């Protein structure tokens, strides 16, 4: 009777050895994978750290407060990013105001209201696809639909709407994901208490999904803030000296800007200060076919504008000049016209004069939403502009603006993480 136990004990020992060998082998793989993973993660972070450090080193001479608050300039050391920061902030404001409510509403509708049918299925597939559309395509769409179609111009409004559409799918997807993580039991409890769908959304679905929704919104915003391509497409300016129209401020007539731009466009205008008086000479070009434009000067008229004239006075001054009339045509261009030689177009860029004429009807102050139609620049475009200049000094500016952009993005992502952790902690089911 002793043989059998010994035999079975042997089998047991054999099995134990086999198991120990297998366990050891799996543990080796485990450790191998862990070390490999750690090395790769470290490499990723190290590369990122080196890039940021390099950027900061390049940018070092410009990293001071004044860089953020100075206007643009052709002198690299005097140039700042005030207009870019303002532009970025205002464009983001428009983006947030459009994309966030629309995206959350769409997400709620698709999760809580929409019946599942072929129509909602198509919408869902399209939203997933829209998230993958290259941003330049959005820019082309905006150029066609907004700038030319709806005539919103190369403005903050256009840029904000474009980026809003661009990030809308991100907000929708984040909202839906977050809503989907709410257990069905919570909805049933709310309905069983006698709540309507809207009350259930208002008191339960929206508050409980808020962490995910806010995280999605911030991620969407930090995506939008770095976008360059669609804004270049719709015509964001790289160099801009005027800040967007401050609500209710007195409309200024930027004499200097009109002068320089008008010279560049159709009608040459000369300015000169004479005893506190700003003087324009509008030279009427030869309009005969084949004649070289501006080559033959047929007539000149001086338009005298007192220094510090209000915008309305500018318009009046042009009107008061003999043989000259000024009007805005249907496309928003300023036409200065002369009986003998017909009209000349000063072009859209003479925004001051255009504004002056418009103001004869509207009064002398900016409306609360005038900034929406201002031209603008944003941080990434500013970086792109500086980096493409040959002077070494502007490379430093580009690096410094890049650092600012990276910091803003990091802060936004940090807030997203904070919200996720903080708000999630209150929810447990």
């Amino acid at each position: 009777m002793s043989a059998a136990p010994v035999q079975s004990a042997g089998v047991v020992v054999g099995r134990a050895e086999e198991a120990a060998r297998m366990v050891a082998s799996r543990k080796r793989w485990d450790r191998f994978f862990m070390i490999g993973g750690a090395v790769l993660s470290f490499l990723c972070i190290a590369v990122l750290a080196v890039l940021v450090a390099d950027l900061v080193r390049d940018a070092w001479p410009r990293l001071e407060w004044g860089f953020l608050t100075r206007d643009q300039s052709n002198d690299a050391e005097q140039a700042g990013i005030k207009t870019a920061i303002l532009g970025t902030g205002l464009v983001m404001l428009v983006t947030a105001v459009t994309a966030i409510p629309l995206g959350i509403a769409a997400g709620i509708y698709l999760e809580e209201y929409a019946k599942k049918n072929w129509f909602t299925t198509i919408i869902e597939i399209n939203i997933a696809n829209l998230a993958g559309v290259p941003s330049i395509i959005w820019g082309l769409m905006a150029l066609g639909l907004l700038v030319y179609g709806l005539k919103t111009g190369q403005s903050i409004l256009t840029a904000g709407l474009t980026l809003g559409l661009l990030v809308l799918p991100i907000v929708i997807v984040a909202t839906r994901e977050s809503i989907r993580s709410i257990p069905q039991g919570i909805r049933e409890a709310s309905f069983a208490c006698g709540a309507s769908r809207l009350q259930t959304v208002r008191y339960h679905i929206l508050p409980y999904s808020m962490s995910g929704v806010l995280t999605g919104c911030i991620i969407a915003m930090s995506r939008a803030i770095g976008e360059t391509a669609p804004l270049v497409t719709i015509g964001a300016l790289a160099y801009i000296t005027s800040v967007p129209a401050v609500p209710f401020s007195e409309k200024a007539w930027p004499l200097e800007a009109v002068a320089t731009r008008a010279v560049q466009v159709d009608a040459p205008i000369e300015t000169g200060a004479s005893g506190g008086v700003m003087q324009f000479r509008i030279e009427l070009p030869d309009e005969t076919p084949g004649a070289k434009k501006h080559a033959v000067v047929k007539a000149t008229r001086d338009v005298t504008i007192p220094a510090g004239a209000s915008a309305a006075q500018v318009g009046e001054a042009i009107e008061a000049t003999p043989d000259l009339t000024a009007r805005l045509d249907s496309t928003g261009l300023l036409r200065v016209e002369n009986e003998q030689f017909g009209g000349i177009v000063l072009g859209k860029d003479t925004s001051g004069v255009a504004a002056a004429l418009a103001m004869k009807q509207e009064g002398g102050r900016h409306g609360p939403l005038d900034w929406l139609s201002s031209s603008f620049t944003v941080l990434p475009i500013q970086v792109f502009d500086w980096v493409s200049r040959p002077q070494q000094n502007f490379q430093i500016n580009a690096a410094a603006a890049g650092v600012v952009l990276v910091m803003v993005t990091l802060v936004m992502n940090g807030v997203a993480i904070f919200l996720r952790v903080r708000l999630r902690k209150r929810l447990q089911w």
Partner: protein
Amino acid sequence: MTSANVSNLQVGNAGDRQRAVEVVVPTHGRDVSGTIAAVDSRAASSSQSASLVKAEVRGLDFYYGKFHALKNLNLAIYDKKITALIGPSGCGKSTLLRCFNRMHDLYPDTKYSGEIVLHPDGLNLVGPGIDPITVRMRISMVFQKPNPFPKSIFENVAFGPRLRGIKGKDALEAEVQRALKGAALWEECKDRLQDNAYRLSGGQQQRLCIARALASDPEVILFDEPTSALDPVATLRIEELMRELREKVTIIVVTHNMHQASRVSDYTAFMYLGELVEYGETPQIFQRPKKTMTEEYISGRFG
């Protein structure tokens, strides 16, 4: 019995106005030999005895898409009594329960036909023109898994009263206190009303859900396996609570636990494959079942 099913069923205590009731259930020529219903025909017509029957299920069919989940159910729910629905998984007991507060309306592709008449006013709960919210304003529900809102204890209970337009701190506090006392939770949490509901234990959470259901002052409370996620001690407390609540409201409870049905309920309905097999007073169902299928289920031979 070709076109009608007639049965005698002893309901209520002897000497009560409820006594042996003869029930006639039209069957439209179909064989529904398993269907027994107790409908006090006088209760439906005379106002004097209307309080005895709180709700009547009449010829109720229910469909999930093409699936015929409830088949021509007829039964009466008695006022301020506990009615237990038992039967094996998939028999339709939860489906029937959720017809009472129109929970199925939340999901697509569901269809009711027939009637559930709520007394005393004769509202047809599953009527096509009846808004589910009006139904849920009168009939509240406690679910299988405790599902408090991730808010404070106070806000959980105050939700129903708020929906009913009760405003003002004092009025809401009075409602919350009344409901928490009704759910035997007041003593345990009167000092921590602002704590998150999820800091309560499982059993306390379920009592909070009962308080939430009570706060809307319902006529009927539906319990869908209310203790299946709880330990035996918590289960016992819930059962005690249900017996106390019977003083004030009508209760319908779905349970998998036959001991629970026999302990707490006054009436028991046994369902199988979407049909009502047997319905009667709980002691009769458990001690002298009329159908062999009921007896086999109760004695644990299937299900």
